[in-house]
Each structure stands twice: as structure tokens, then as C-alpha cells.
């Protein structure tokens, strides 16, 4: 942690409050940009889209379900099919699912923030119950029996007590689903569930294992051309004068699309486009703006901040007998999709169609319409999968790039993919953050008062205007850049999970939002929860140590939430915490817990590490996790998400940091930005699910990021006796800290 931050920003120093700037605003909420609620009493996204036929259609061809959420590799398609199948009581294979498409599906904003089950899952479950209820009423009328005398057959029909049956498809013709959902449509009884709660294999996996068309990268349209966008090495740079003639002279190059500083080269063959890009990049590059603050990656957090008190409970500071205080930080982190971002765009007859792996087809449509100067009803954005994004990466930008190229070549579909160095150099990053915590312990070793502060840049640069796209800032005239805004609590951005879940007699938390950031910042899986949970859960261990208490027992003693306690107890039991191997200077164990956003899943992680003194290398030998995600739709899908989140967060927390010099990002590829490989991942990862059927779905996709990082830090501290508070816990830092 920088001394500067400590002097200027921490502990009572007067904070600068800047006035709100005028200009296009970023989304107020990460999951926002959906239309305003019109039916606030309904579950999930039915609040904004209450009509049943927006979600479910039944006709002679079968059942089609629509969602505004997108498959990001998190398995949402499978889970939503299960939800619909359960309350319609049909086999999952009977459901056709249409995902995020501005031409066909409800607008559910962004697929982010572990919201999909809470928003779309709850909507579809309820819509399915409504549709089954309406079908039952129609069947009852047709068969001349009472609706509650009918039983579903499990394969798309009803059966009367006398054995007569009627199919949904036969009822559908006479039934309008263009009616608003009711909140009280009965769900199928928990004990009769056939699909929800079972391990249905993911519907998207078979194509991915066999070379099927699975990604927008695989889309091939008749007459399609290949394009590459022409940019400098990273955000803030630009190429010098392009040798346009040299590129156009290359056989197979069709066009160099230029508009202001935007340039894309289009060719018949993909490799030609790559070679033409390389030829154009020979122009060299420059950085027109001020230099980046190379050196201390935290220095930018000392900038002017907008400050908000996010927690203030209990009057006055309780008298403690001992004060504990510490500061924690993380560097800039990269999403690092394995597949560079890609889009296909086609402009024909005044209509622009964009196939994209964006997380938000509707907001992107607005931004692209502005960029290409079309009315938004002349632009259609259709989601197709990309490589896993883990937040706002290059997906939206590349769609803007492809759209501009397509507008210049009407009638020809354009496939534009970024190069690896472009993804590393231009994707929005997860920003650096710092947190400081001070607590006083009473004579009994309980926390009597708690003060938390966090400093963060924006976690939300998602495009809502053309100025939120890279191309929008390059065209002539350029669009105004979006002004970043903090995401309000309770979800929060940099302050996500900044309010500790523990019950303290007195607690105060302050969030400092620093608008001006040296690097491009936006949403990275779990936003501020990664750093805040790392800080809080590291600090709980530091307090437990000061109190002479066991870390798990210390947490339990400060919790009132019974579900939190149950998850901690399950994790500790499955790990064998009580009988764990005691630290011997090399081996150690760590524990951490959080409820994501204090309103989604509960997740605890325990792990065992071995530290090699000679190198500082930390090997994670085994990990045990417990998760309560409410009513679990697909237990194995949930485990897959938590396992992946743990392994990814161990990579972030143990290895990763974006580097930059005065001119540009120097993390330009996988050699310059190493991430976990097979030799780095744990010996084993176990996930135990605490299922609570019939309770609301709790988002889980991002729940493990904070606890996994904190458990690693706690295990390293246990193993070595040295507390490391700045991420990543790299071998160099570990070696330096243990001083061998």
C-alpha cells in the first residue's frame, strides 16, 4: 500500500467531493438498463415484462421459451430450460429456448452480477406456472371436469380422473397467452419435481466437444468477408500515418474502412486481413495524451473522490481494549478471455444485424444505432456465445467495430475478430482497489467497533451510448465519452461486499469512488467483492489471532444469520477443520466466507497450501467449499461455477497483475500476463451444496471470487506466520516476506 494513500486518503483526512459531471451516464446499476418496472409485485423480470407470451409460447410445434439473458458458459440455458420444464411439467428436451435477441426476447438488461436466475429464472418459473394454470383451466373446460381434478402427464398433457387425456398443443390454439402473469400461480409440489434440482447435462456442451457451431466465431454467412480493426497497442495509443496504399495493394484486400481515427481492413480471406493489419501496424504508434502514472499501481486511488457512507450502525465508538488495523489492495486485473472478441455484422436493405457475444444486446443496440446513425429499430443484436467473458471485455467494442465495417460494405456480412494483443491491450480491466479496516476488540475478544473504507475506480464502463464503444471515440466527429458513475448499494461497485456481514455493536463503512482512472476500467466478475471480501476475511483472521480465537469459531461468534452459519459449519466439517494439520512453517490452512452482495449466495472456502521457502511458490493442495444458492436448479452446474470461480480467483489472487509503463499497457499477451496453468491449479477442489428447495434462487456465479482469494491469503499467513495484504500473493512477494 502506498504511503501517499495512507496520508491523504485514510483515517479522517478531508475527502474531496467532486460535482457530478454533465455527459452521457453509464448504467446506474450493473444489471440495469432494463426497462422500468411496470408490475412490481411480480417475481424477477416479470416486473418489467409481465405478459406471458413474451416468455412462453405453446403451439402445435411445441413449446418455446424466451429469455433476455445470454449463455456465457455459465450454463444458464440449461438451468432456464429446467425451470420452464419443471413448472410446465414437460421433458427438458421438449423446450426450445431463445436467448438474448433484440428482435425476439424480453429486454432483461445485462447478463451480469449473478442475476440471471434471480431475474430470468424467477420470471420463467412463474410464467411456466401461469401457463400450466391457464392450460389446466382450458383442459378442464374441454374435459368437463374441475381444474384441480386434472394431473399433468409429464409429457405435455393433462389426464382426467376417468383416464381421458388432452395435449397442451391441442389446447394452445384456443388459448391466448397475451395476458399478464399472476404472482400466485401455484408451482408444482416440491416432492413431485422431475427436473428442477436434478443434474441435467448442459445442453451446450455436446457441440463444444465435437466442433459444432457453438460460438459467434463459428458463424459463416454466404458472401462473408473477414476484417481486422487497426489500432495501436493499447488504450490511449494511436497508430501514426497508415500506409493505406500498401495495404490495398495486397491481393485479396477488399477495403480499408476509415472514419476519423477508426480503421478496419477487410479482406476475402482471414489470413489476408491479419497480414494487412500487420502491414498497417508498421506505421508505428504514439501516445497523444498525458503519460500513464507508471510505478505505484495504487497511486491513482489518491485522486479526488466521491464519498459515501455505506454503513453506519451503533452509536459512538464502543470502548475496546485492543485495536487492530490493516490495509489491503489489489492491482489492475484482466478478464483475459481465451478467445479474442468477435462479431459478425451485416447491413442490408437499411437494416443492420449484429451477431455478438455481448452481455447486453439491448444496451448494445442503442450504442451501435447511435454509432452508425440508424434508428434503433433498424438495428438488431443477436447473442451468440463467445469465449467466457467474466465481465465487460472486448465483446461490445468488437461489435461496434464490425458494425462500422459492415456499414461501409452493404450486402456483405463482415466477421471481425480481435487479435490476442488487441484483447490484452484494449479490453476494459478490473480496477485496482484498496481497503483499510480498523477494529477494536473488547476484553472478551469480540469486535466492539469496526471502521471500513474502500477506494476504487469505476466498475461500470458498459456501453449505453456510442461513446461507450472504442469506435465511438475514434470516428469523426467523436462521441462524448461516457462518464463513469458508482453503482449504488446494496449491490455496489467498488464497495460491493464493503459492508461486512458480521454483527458488530458499532460499524461504519465509507466508499470512495475515484472517477479519474489511468486505465480503462469496467466490470470484472464480482466487481469490488473480490478485494473487499479479501480484505474483510483477511482482517477477521487478523482479529481472531489478536483475540487468540480459532478463525472459524471467531466468525461464527460474530454471525446472526443462520444460513451463513450453516454454510460455514458445512465447509468446516467437510474440510476437517477441527482436526486440520497444524502449521509447520510450510503447510497451512485458511478459511473465508461471504454472502455475495449480502443478498445472493452464501459461500465458504477452506483450503490447504504448501509454501516452498526457496522460491516463495504457493501450492494449493486441496480446496473444500460449501455453497447455499437457495433453490438449486442444477447442482452439478452450480458446482461447476463454484469450482471454476475458485480456480480463477486463485489465479487472480496468486499470480495476476496488469502492468503498464508511461506509454502503454505492457501486459500484451499470455507471456506478459501469466495466468494459472495446470501445474498451478489445486490438487483437488470439492464443492458441497446446501440446497434449499422452494426458497428463492440466489445468484451464485460470482460468489466464490472473494472467499477463494481470502482463504488463500489466510492459508499463506497460517503457513508462514507472515500476513500479506497486497495482491497478488506472488512467489516474489511470498519469498521476500518470509525473508529467506
Amino acid at each position: 500500500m502506498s504511503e501517499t494513500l495512507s496520508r491523504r486518503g485514510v483515517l479522517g483526512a478531508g475527502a474531496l467531493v467532486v460535482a457530478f459531471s454533465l455527459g452521457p451516464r453509464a448504467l446506474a446499476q450493473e444489471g440495469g438498463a432494463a426497462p422500468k418496472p411496470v408490475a412490481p409485485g411480480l417475481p424477477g423480470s416479470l416486473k418489467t415484462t409481465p405478459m406471458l407470451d413474451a416468455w412462453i409460447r405453446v403451439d402445435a410445434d411445441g413449446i418455446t421459451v424466451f429469455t433476455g439473458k445470454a449463455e456465457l458458459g455459465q450454463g444458464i440455458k440449461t438451468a432456464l430450460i429446467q425451470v420452464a420444464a419443471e413448472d410446465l411439467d414437460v421433458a427438458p428436451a421438449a423446450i426450445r429456448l431463445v436467448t438474448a435477441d433484440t428482435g425476439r426476447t424480453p429486454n432483461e438488461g445485462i447478463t451480469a452480477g449473478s442475476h440471471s436466475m434471480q431475474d430470468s429464472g424467477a420470471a420463467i418459473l412463474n410464467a411456466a406456472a401461469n401457463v400450466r394454470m391457464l392450460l389446466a383451466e382450458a383442459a378442464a373446460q374441454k374435459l368437463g371436469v374441475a381444474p384441480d381434478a386434472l394431473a399433468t402427464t409429464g409429457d405435455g398433457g393433462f389426464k382426467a380422473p376417468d383416464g381421458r387425456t388432452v395435449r397442451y398443443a391441442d389446447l394452445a390454439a384456443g388459448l391466448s397467452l397475451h395476458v399478464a402473469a399472476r404472482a400466485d400461480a401455484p408451482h408444482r409440489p416440491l416432492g413431485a419435481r422431475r427436473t428442477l434440482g436434478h443434474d441435467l447435462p448442459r445442453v451446450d456442451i455436446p457441440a463444444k466437444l465435437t466442433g459444432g457451431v457453438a460460438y459467434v466465431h463459428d458463424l459463416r454467412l454466404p458472401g462473408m468477408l473477414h476484417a481486422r480493426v487497426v489500432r495501436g497497442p493499447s488504450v490511449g495509443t494511436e497508430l501514426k500515418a497508415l500506409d493505406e496504399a500498401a495495404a490495398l495493394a495486397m491481393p485479396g484486400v477488399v477495403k480499408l474502412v476509415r472514419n476519423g481515427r477508426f480503421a478496419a481492413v477487410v479482406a476475402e480471406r482471414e489470413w489476408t486481413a491479419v497480414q494487412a493489419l500487420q502491414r498497417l501496424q508498421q506505421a508505428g504508434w504514439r501516445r497523444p495524451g498525458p503519460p500513464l502514472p507508471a510505478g505505484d499501481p495504487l497511486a491513482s486511488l489518491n485522486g479526488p473522490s466521491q464519498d459515501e457512507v455505506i454503513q453506519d450502525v451503533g452509536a459512538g465508538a464502543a470502548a475496546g481494549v485492543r485495536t487492530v488495523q490493516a490495509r489491503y489492495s489489489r492491482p489492475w486485473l484482466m478478464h483475459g478471455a481465451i478467445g479474442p472478441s468477435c462479431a459478425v455484422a451485416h447491413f442490408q436493405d437499411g437494416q443492420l444485424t449484429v451477431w455478438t457475444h455481448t452481455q447486453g444486446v439491448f444496451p448494445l443496440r442503442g450504442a451501435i444505432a447511435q454509432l452508425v446513425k440508424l434508428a434503433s429499430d433498424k438495428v438488431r443484436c443477436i447473442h451468440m456465445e463467445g469465449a467466457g467473458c467474466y465481465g465487460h471485455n472486448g465483446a461490445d467494442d468488437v461489435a461496434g467495430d464490425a458494425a462500422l465495417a459492415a456499414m461501409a460494405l452493404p450486402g456483405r456480412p463482415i466477421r471481425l475478430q480481435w487479435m490476442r494483443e488487441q484483447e490484452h491491450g484494449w479490453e476494459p480491466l478490473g480496477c485496482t482497489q484498496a481497503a483499510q479496516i480498523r477494529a477494536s476488540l473488547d476484553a472478551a475478544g469480540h469486535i466492539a467497533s469496526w471502521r471500513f473504507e474502500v477506494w476504487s475506480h469505476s466498475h461500470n464502463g458498459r456501453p449505453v451510448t456510442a461513446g461507450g464503444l472504442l469506435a465511438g471515440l475514434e470516428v469523426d466527429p467523436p462521441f462524448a465519452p461516457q462518464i463513469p458513475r458508482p453503482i449504488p448499494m446494496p449491490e455496489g461497485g467498488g464497495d460491493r461486499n464493503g459492508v461486512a456481514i458480521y454483527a458488530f455493536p458499532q460499524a461504519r463503512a465509507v466508499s470512495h469512488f475515484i472517477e479519474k482512472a489511468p486505465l480503462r476500467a469496467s466490470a470484472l466478475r464480482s466487481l469490488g467483492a473480490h478485494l473487499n471480501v479479501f480484505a474483510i476475511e483477511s482482517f477477521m483472521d487478523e482479529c481472531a489471532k489478536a483475540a487468540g480465537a480459532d478463525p472459524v469459531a471467531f466468525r461464527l461468534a460474530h454471525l446472526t444469520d443462520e444460513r451463513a452459519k450453516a454454510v460455514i459449519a458445512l465447509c468446516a466439517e467437510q474440510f476437517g477443520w477441527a482436526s486440520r494439520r497444524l502449521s509447520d512453517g510450510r503447510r497451512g490452512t485458511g478459511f473465508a466466507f461471504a454472502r455475495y452482495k449480502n443478498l445472493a449466495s452464501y459461500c465458504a472456502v477452506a483450503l490447504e497450501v504448501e509454501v516452498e521457502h526457496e522460491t516463495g511458490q504457493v501450492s494449493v493442495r486441496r480446496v473444500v467449499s460449501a455453497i447455499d444458492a437457495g433453490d438449486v436448479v442444477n447442482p452439478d452446474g452450480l458446482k461447476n461455477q463454484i469450482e471454476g470461480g475458485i480456480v480463477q480467483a486463485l489465479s487472480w489472487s496468486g499470480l495476476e497483475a496488469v502492468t503498464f509503463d508511461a506509454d502503454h499497457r505492457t501486459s500484451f499477451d499470455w507471456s506478459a500476463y501469466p495466468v494459472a496453468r495446470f501445474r498451478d491449479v489445486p490438487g483437488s477442489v470439492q464443492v458441497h451444496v446446501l440446497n434449499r428447495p422452494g426458497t428463492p434462487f440466489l445468484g451464485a456465479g460470482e460468489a466464490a471470487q472473494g472467499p477463494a482469494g481470502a482463504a488463500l491469503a489466510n492459508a499463506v499467513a497460517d503457513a508462514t506466520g507472515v500476513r500479506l495484504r497486497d495482491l497478488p500473493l506472488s512467489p516474489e512477494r511470498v519469498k521476500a516476506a518470509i525473508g529467506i
Partner: protein
Amino acid sequence: MIVLNVNGRDHSLDVPPETPLLYVLRNDLQLNGAKFGCGLGQCGACTVQVDGQAAYSCLLPVSAAAGRHVRTVEGLGTVEKPGVLQRAFETEQAAQCGYCIAGMIMRAQALLDANPRPSEAQIRAHMQPNLCRCGTHMRILRAIRRAAGLPPDGKMEAA
């Protein structure tokens, strides 16, 4: 004209000889399995087998693959009739986004072709060149063990 043998079939192709094999597989032969990940031989998303060995198709000029046997994930099986490794990945649900998976399968295939019962350390060392960003590593390892007839939760040896 270059004659390229892919998954047991010869293809006569009129393509610039320096074109990386990856682009020929994807665009000329319309095989989706091998993916562009980095173009630098750093991530393995493009991995295919060339004469049985795992190779980065993003780096290998198509002319250098001519006259050799190229195998892609499409050559192992289909959705209806998956190969042993494909079935093991399906059973273990060893994918999240799945962008890396075809490359993972092909690198693992090269290992199992040469060493049908590898140790855990051998599996991890062999798979080291291929990156997964979703953190699906534990399932990928289980799938490889399963395909090799090893206990799926094989204990990691002290390494």
C-alpha cells in the same frame, strides 16, 4: 495446390502456402473445433494432432502440414457417436464456456495415444501448454483420467 490430409480425408486446396493451418481448417474446411486464441503458441486453443503429436495450428504453415496426418476434434467422433475422450468430457461436464475444450481434448488425445495410463504428474505436465480461463481444470483432469481408465479423483502425487 496443397494436398492436406485431415481426419483421414485428402483435400486439394488452393491457398497461400504460408497460411497457418488454423485458418485453412476453420475457413476452407469449415471445421470449427480448432480455435483462434492467441496466434502465438501460448494458449493451445488451436491444438490439433499432426502425425499424432499435439501441434499449434495457429503457428504451423499449411504447407508444413501437407503430406502429414492432421487430426482435429471432429475426427474423434460426433455428438451422436462421441469418441472416448469426448464422452469422458461429457460425463464429467468438463466445460464452462468451452472455447478451450477442443484444444484440450486434442492435446490429451496425443498424450493418451503415446501413454495410455499416464500418472497425474504426467497429465498435468503434458497439459501445461493449454490455457483455460474459466477454471475448469479440475474437471478436465477428471475427464482425462476417466478416458484413461484411471480413478477420476486420482490423488495428486507430491510434485
